[in-house]
């Protein structure tokens, strides 16, 4: 809650040269501007929806084909039994993390700049998780048995084995999705009430009215809302750390050289937030341009996110360094080979070096403030970082599996057209869901911006 940012005296600062909001739009102007997307689609929206919709159909077509023929239509083999499906799973889950980071971490840290981007980021989390959750299910081979992951009293008396990391994954991802959904929906309720009260047409008012649950902005409602939102933020914060840590345990509790490493949990969490911020930038920049929101999503927002990319980029570099150092220092022959020979010189070496360049060199651009606020640079860097993070998972998963202990069992992996269709299709599916979201839901939290404006005005900040 912006209103709980500390004692008023502590917040009193000289005018901010890089404001989180330009001008002081009044409540009425703010509300009608932010509800405007619900009244009609901008030009090009339908075209984009059709394109991403076609990609989504391709995704479900490829999934249907996989179900009908079995996962033999993928490029997976032995020893590379985990490939695109797991790479995509880890990549999408990671992207989700920045949404929770913005909405929960930054709420607890009382960062006013989160207000205008948090709902976009949370929606990104939900849609990224929707995509992520597809992949382990597809990878089961017999996806109709997915309910075996749930501990329920079955007649045949078999229970999930909780000493394995895979049921942990199911618990972590399921919890993460549900908690993110509750957090997002709770934040939406006051804005759904605004939509209910202003949209034309009885049917639309009724639909938004039902989801607004009868919100009327009473003081008691705000009090409970504030507390619940804060509690959910407090719960989501350790949760987001736990999710990618648990995902990383899928790898690190195995014996495979290149996976069996204690640095994996923090390494994965940092990578997750890193790729997630790149995705947030990629979504926010076109959106603010399209809806002319430069006064609400200001250069300050872009600057802050770029700084986070820089910091996370260095943490990634540190993780790569320690991972390699420990492989040498640990003295295990297989691990030394995997990290010091196979990875930098082996069959997938070019992907490894490409990944290092993308993830370590790209963020160095953000030492300069001009580049941190330049939208073309940010978009380019975000795309490179997202690709780099995908490659990182490829290098870890496929690279490690393809050359394990016995040279006689080594084999390379090549994706098939089904693998590539599913990857491309899932990107389209993500875009499709996001386009629906910006059209039908207020994607900037109006009530939080009213609070932000109220707080900025009462603090007397002249910016």
């Amino acid at each position, binding site marked *: 809650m912006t209103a709980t940012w500390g004692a008023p005296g502590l917040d009193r600062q000289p005018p901010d040269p890089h404001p989180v909001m330009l001008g002081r739009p009044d409540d009425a102007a703010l509300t009608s501007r932010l509800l405007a997307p619900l009244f009609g689609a901008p030009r090009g929206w339908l075209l984009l929806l059709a394109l991403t919709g076609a990609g989504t159909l391709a995704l479900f077509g490829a999934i249907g084909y996989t179900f009908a023929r079995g996962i033999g239509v993928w490029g997976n083999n032995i020893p590379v039994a985990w490939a695109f499906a797991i790479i995509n799973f880890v990549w999408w889950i990671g992207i989700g993390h920045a949404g929770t980071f913005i909405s929960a971490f930054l709420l607890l840290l009382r960062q006013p700049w989160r207000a205008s981007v948090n709902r976009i980021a949370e929606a990104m989390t939900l849609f990224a998780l929707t995509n992520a959750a597809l992949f382990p299910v597809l990878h089961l081979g017999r996806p109709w048995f997915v309910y075996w992951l749930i501990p329920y009293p079955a007649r045949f008396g078999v*229970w999930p084995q909780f000493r394995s990391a895979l049921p942990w994954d199911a618990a972590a991802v399921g919890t993460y999705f549900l908690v993110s959904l509750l957090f997002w929906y709770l934040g939406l309720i006051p804005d759904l009430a605004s939509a209910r009260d202003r949209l034309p047409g009885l049917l639309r008012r009724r639909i938004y009215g039902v989801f607004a649950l009868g919100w009327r902005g009473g003081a008691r409602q*705000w009090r409970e809302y504030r507390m619940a939102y804060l509690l*959910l933020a407090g*719960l989501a914060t350790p949760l987001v750390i736990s999710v990618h840590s648990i995902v990383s345990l899928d790898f690190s509790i195995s014996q495979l050289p290149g996976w069996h490493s204690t640095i994996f949990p923090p390494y994965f969490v940092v990578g997750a937030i890193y790729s997630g911020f790149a995705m947030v930038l990629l979504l926010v920049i076109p959106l603010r341009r399209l809806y002319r929101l430069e006064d609400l999503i200001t250069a300050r927002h872009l600057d802050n996110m770029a700084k986070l990319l820089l910091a996370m980029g260095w943490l990634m570099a540190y993780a790569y360094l320690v991972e390699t150092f420990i492989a040498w220092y640990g003295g295990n022959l297989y691990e030394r080979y995997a990290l010091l020979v196979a990875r930098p010189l082996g069959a997938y070496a070019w992907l490894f070096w490409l990944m290092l360049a993308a993830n370590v060199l790209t963020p160095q651009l953000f030492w300069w403030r001009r580049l941190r606020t330049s939208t073309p640079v940010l978009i380019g860097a975000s795309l490179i970082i997202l690709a780099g993070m995908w490659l990182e998972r490829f290098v870890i998963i496929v690279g490690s599996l393809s050359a394990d202990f016995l040279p006689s069992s080594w084999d390379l992996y090549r994706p098939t057209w089904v693998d590539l269709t599913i990857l491309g299709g899932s990107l389209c599916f993500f875009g499709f869901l996001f386009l629906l979201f910006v059209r039908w839901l207020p994607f900037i939290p109006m009530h939080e911006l009213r609070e932000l404006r*109220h707080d900025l005005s009462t603090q007397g900040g002249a910016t």
Partner: protein
Amino acid sequence: MSARGGLVAELESADALEAAVRALHALGYRAVETFAPLDLPATEASRGVGRSRLGPYVFGGGVVGAVLGYGIQWYADVRAFPVAVGGRPLHPVPAFIPATFEATVLCAALTAFIGVLVTLRLPSLWHPVFEVDGFERASADRYWVQIGRDDPLFERERTMADLASLGAVRVAPVPQT
């Protein structure tokens, strides 16, 4: 104290609402409710809107989740279907921690969300104030203050004058339920 029926007044700014709440409190009104398009904790303190009691319930939900999460795993893998793998202990406490943690967070979060709905008695899609003309702006740019007819000081004419003196752009009766 809750407010039922009575009168509502429409104000034009958050500052006017905060001033009005203080003024009404000074006049002795106690059944005062406010409606605002944003969270204004400043309007709560002077009229006895206490702290939310959600916290302890959420903690309780978390405890239940932890016990349930660990209990299910223990029952499944220790009691009902023990599998001996590589001489590892049949009751591996560390291996049960991740899912226990997730169950804790899940139950606490569900308690927080359901707790809000229960304490606020939501969803309740209709409320008498919705019948007041212009109240739809309470979710956009107008601030409303209600004095319930259950307030001991409530007296239609005088209360109406009091509300008008606060700079209200409109004073209207709230329909009886």
